[in-house]
């Protein structure tokens, strides 16, 4: 807190900018750009990929599974900016479409994970006692399973597909992440305003929703962004192993393991295009997430 000590009865009008309600988001973005240029750049790059994913169908110059016998394994050119694969499909179109799929999977899975973390973390952290005990031993047990092995087992039982991946990865990361939310909730719960809310006669759901959850929001935002990057990687890993979204739907992991690996020497662009996209987007979201973490740290609160 940098509230000037001894300000006393004098209202600190200086810090009351008249345009306060204007836009906290806009002020935050400006601060991000000024203090964390790398993070801001990461955010911008990620936003670019996100938009590419959203508008993939419009942006893709060719059909995803449109083959052409004349243009097989063509290197990048004006006609095919990222080249073509062994059956003449346009790599740019496939990378765009694969990016779309990565974005959908990662946002849904990270969203689900954050929601699961929030529910478990808040219940466990706020109510404590026996409920906390039971939930946390469950989380302990869950975390003893190795992620990848669990994924492979479940996918091989229920079969590969986008929904399965979203649900499994969402649960997997959600349950593990609940620890972080729980810790944050406990520290908020012990602050006086949480007790004060009780003392004015508020019910637990109201206290949770109005007082606890808004105060763990920074943690959730950071959790979400880091999970997005992790899910993209996991999805690519599963596709690479052949357990992801099944072909012919293009995925980055699938492109790497299929045509990318087989034709690496004949057409390096086949591996480079999805591989670079994957690397760049995960790097971008990670630096962005780190920057958010630094800026949203509760200890920095009020000092702005």
């Amino acid at each position, binding site marked *: 807190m940098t509230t*000037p000590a001894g*300000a006393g009865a004098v209202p600190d009008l200086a810090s009351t900018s008249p345009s306060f309600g204007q836009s906290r988001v806009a002020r935050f973005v400006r601060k991000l750009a000024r203090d964390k240029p790398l993070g801001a750049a990461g955010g911008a790059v990620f936003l670019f990929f996100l938009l590419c994913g959203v508008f993939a169908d419009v942006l893709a110059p060719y059909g995803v599974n449109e083959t052409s016998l004349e243009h097989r394994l063509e290197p990048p050119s004006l006609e095919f900016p990222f080249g073509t694969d062994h059956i003449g499909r346009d790599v740019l179109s496939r990378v765009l479409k694969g990016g779309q799929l990565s974005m959908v999977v990662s946002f849904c899975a990270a969203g689900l994970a954050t929601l699961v973390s929030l529910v478990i973390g808040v219940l466990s952290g706020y109510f404590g006692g026996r409920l906390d005990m039971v939930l946390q031993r469950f989380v302990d047990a869950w975390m003893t399973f190795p992620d990848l092995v669990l994924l492979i087992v479940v996918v091989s039982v229920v079969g590969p597909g986008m929904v399965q991946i979203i649900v499994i990865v969402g649960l997997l990361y959600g349950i593990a992440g609940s620890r972080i939310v729980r810790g944050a909730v406990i520290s908020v719960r012990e602050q006086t305003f949480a007790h004060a809310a009780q003392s004015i006669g508020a019910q637990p759901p109201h206290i949770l929703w109005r007082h606890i959850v808004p105060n763990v929001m920074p943690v959730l935002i950071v959790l979400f962004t880091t999970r997005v990057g992790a899910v993209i990687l996991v999805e690519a890993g599963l596709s690479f192993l052949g357990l992801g979204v099944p072909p012919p739907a293009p995925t980055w992991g699938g492109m790497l393991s299929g045509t990318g690996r087989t034709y690496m020497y004949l057409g390096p662009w086949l591996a480079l295009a999805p591989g670079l996209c994957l690397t760049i987007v995960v790097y971008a979201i990670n630096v962005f997430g780190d920057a958010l973490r630094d800026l949203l740290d509760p200890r920095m609160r009020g000092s702005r």
Partner: protein
Amino acid sequence: MSDTLLRVEDLCVDFPTESRRGRRRSVRVLDHVSLEIERGETLALVGESGSGKSMTALSILQLIPEPGRATAGEVLLEGRDLLALRESEIRAVRGNRVAMIFQEPMSSLNPVLTIGRQVAEPIRLHRKASKAEARERAAELLEAVSIPDAARRLDDYPHQFSGGMRQRVMIAMALACEPDLIIADEPTTALDVTVQAQILALLKDLTSRLQSALLLITHDLGVVARYADRVSVMYAGRIVESASAGKLYGNPSHPYTRGLLQSVPRLDDSAQTRLVPIDGQPPDLANLPTGCAFSPRCPQVHDKCRLERPELDSVVAATDDGPHTRACWGPEQP
């Protein structure tokens, strides 16, 4: 005189501790505490840290932290036992008929909600008011606690307020539903001395305007002298002396009260007067002496004190400004 608002009778609060070899043990943090507050009156509860002042306040609203339990006694608000109320019933009392002001103004406001919404919260919870009505009332309340430019500051966040201003906001929140009783738990401890006086004067002024009673918890005897009508002194979970403020200062009867008063500088003391501290440390509640809890530190201790615990009902003098009671075996005058 007879217009009793709140009566705490023989309240005991226990905290279970580690059970050793199957034997459940517990620490008694409040031991037969009795209080009475009349409508419009200010009662000060004085004592060292850990003497049970805050615990008494929390017990009134069933807010005793886990795993503590009120194991005996009653808390009667206009004859209704608050300890016997179900969770939903006590919620209707909290913030509505009895409001609380906490010690730390810096952390007792939610940093992510605007001041307006927080002040409006009790009204929204208890009065079923619409958003617009509650907002309007919040503006009035901020006006009442002398926050300049109140209407415009409704949309500000707590970090834009200084400590004193935040405590004003807390007072506004406490007054929102015009409660019968306001409990202020060391409301000025975290504030500058100059601000302390303002806040207490404001609190006193507003409670008397609303005809609310005030339970003022403090360890500052100067505060007590100026603002309290009656005083109860607590030591090791018990009330050891209870009297009108004038009587307590003019004629302190319990050796602990005398010790407290002697350890505080007074304006009318000459520069040569030395402050006399009370010897020793407050006792461990888990391991209280058999007799009077104050006996190991008491300058006038005698044999009976070490064996038998004195009760509060030994009336020193029934005066026209209420009874003067104390729990001590010693002589009334030193």
